[in-house]
């Protein structure tokens, strides 16, 4: 039997940002800016989501020469489903900060 997932406000914030235009890949710093989460909070959450198969990650070539390769992240299909279950819909437009937003 499926257990109903319970989520923290911060996880919901992250899911909401990732669920908005779910097909788009996002960098870690971009996610940090959009959610208002610090790297010390954001990365453990990304790791857990990935461990559970809700997030996929890949290396990508840098936009500017001389910079190192970057990680990009996006939700998997099951992750997008989870985000919908958590009510992570109706998120603000991309680029707008999610800081302080409490999702149901």
């Amino acid at each position, binding site marked *: 039997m499926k*257990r109903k*997932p*319970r989520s923290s406000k911060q996880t919901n914030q992250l899911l909401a940002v990732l669920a908005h235009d779910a097909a788009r890949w996002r960098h870690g710093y971009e996610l940090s800016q959009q959610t208002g989460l*610090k*790297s010390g909070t954001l*990365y453990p959450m990304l*790791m857990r989501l990935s461990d*559970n198969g*809700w997030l996929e990650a890949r290396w990508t070539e840098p936009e500017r020469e001389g910079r190192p390769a970057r*990680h990009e992240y996006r939700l998997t299909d099951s992750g997008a489903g989870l985000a919908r279950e958590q009510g992570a819909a109706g998120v603000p437009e991309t680029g707008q900060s999610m800081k302080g937003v409490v999702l149901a």
Partner: protein
Amino acid sequence: MSLAREISRGIAAHACMVMPRSRGFWAAGLANELDHIEDDGAALRWAMGGVVTAYLERASAVFGSAPVRGLLLLPLLFEGMQAVFAQTMTLAWRLGATGVLGVMGAQTPGDDYHRFIPLLQLVPDWYVASGFVAGALVLASAVQLVRRRSTSVGLFIAGIVLGLAAETLVHTVPGYNEAARQVFQFKDVRTMRDLVMPIATQIVPVFIACLLWLATRGTRPRMGAAN
């Protein structure tokens, strides 16, 4: 390159070193992100977060391993036993089980249960019941630790808080304070018994809760499980 940027890089490199090998992919991603952050202050904060993450992941890998969790069971079970000790004595007194009382009394300072009789007569039923509930919560925490579930921390804290609350409230029982003074008053002062142990009794549960958190964090994320 600014000093702040150099420090950030040093911290990020350290984070990569500390992060468990199984998380190397994430450490590299976190560190590489630094070069895409324009502001030096933001880069420094990013690196600091990275190193905290690395140490927590490392600690979780160590404390979450089966042998260390097995070792952690010992203090946890000790706390559980401590939670029900006084209550078991009270129950044994009420049931007239003097054999049990004798054995338990021998484990106490003074090596005899008779001096506890004024307290055993005074403590109310709710105090006895709360001790057993607290003990059950700590035992449940131990089971969850074996299963490496993060609920272990909450159950342990609930057990300890319940025990503490009962210990505090029992002082409001008429005559309890006077009886306790008689029971726990010793002619000589011993550092271990009268100073070290009371402090350790308060600190050890906090320490255990931290270790439980490290041992079980990340195994079941705040999200819970999908299946």
